[in-house]
């Protein structure tokens, strides 16, 4: 592929972006995508959150999983960084700690694809007993 340089090249590429989006939106379950949040505060970045986020974005697209990967702040689990929150459609979000690219791969293959839980989950209660 020729080197990408200018905004004109971007204009040329636009159609291919659009066709990818169309393809995805015509998929079986439009709107039901996996939501992933990568904790990107000082603690997360210092432990490699950027690599994990890039890996997630790339691999989920490659493996054809409908997903949105976004950044979030520190979730308070600095000791377990990098942490990511994965929300499967219609389910409660789950937080995973000590995520490197190997762990991220495992999360995609086991949890996201099959719903199997993998090691490294940080227990988080969104609802307390009181309510």
């Amino acid at each position, binding site marked *: 592929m020729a080197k990408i340089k200018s905004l004109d090249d971007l204009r040329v590429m636009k159609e291919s972006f659009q066709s990818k989006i169309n393809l995805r939106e015509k998929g079986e379950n439009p709107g039901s995508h996996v939501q992933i949040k990568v904790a990107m505060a000082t603690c997360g*970045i210092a432990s490699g959150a*950027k690599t994990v986020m*890039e890996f997630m974005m790339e691999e989920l697209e490659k493996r054809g999983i409908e997903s949105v990967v976004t950044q979030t702040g520190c979730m308070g689990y600095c000791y377990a960084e990098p942490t990511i929150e994965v929300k499967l459609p219609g389910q409660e979000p789950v937080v995973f700690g000590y995520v490197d690219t190997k762990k991220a791969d495992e999360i995609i293959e086991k949890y996201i694809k099959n719903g199997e839980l993998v090691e490294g989950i940080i227990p988080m209660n969104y609802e307390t007993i009181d309510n």
Partner: protein
Amino acid sequence: MRDLSLHILDIIQNSVAANASLIEISIHEDVEKDLLKITIKDNGKGMSKEFVKIATDPYTTSRTTRKVGLGIPLLKQNAERTGGSLSITSELGKGTILEATFIPSNIDCLSLGDIAGVIALTVSGNPLINFIYNHNINGNLYTFNTKEVKEILEGISIAEPSVCRYLKEMIQSNLEEIQIGTFGYKT
């Protein structure tokens, strides 16, 4: 932090948290003056004079999930280690300017790292914020403005993974053209 690009990624989060709608990142490399300057300017909510004074203190943070805030102190430490410095100017309601200078020839100076990746990740991670990124290497300037990119993309979101990857490549090849790495440090 392993390199300066990660520091930039980190500091930008402060501007994002301050509800900025425009964030300007400027990197100026000057081999003759042996100087590397990173400036991050935002139009967020700004800080009071008192808060600016304590912003470089590791026990200062605006968050409630923990009691320490290491982003700015770590950057300050890394800048000062090379003989450089860090300064913050801020005005409530107007925004904040953070400036860090480094002496690249110093052995303790971190490499710049994957700056193209950091910019691409940041702009697509914050699709509602506009970013301007200026990188000047020995007088050769490259400017990246998300406003222009968004105009070209029209309806397509800048958050699309394929767009993010594309932007990274675009920034990278432009930086190569203005000779990234003329300082001799690893890029």
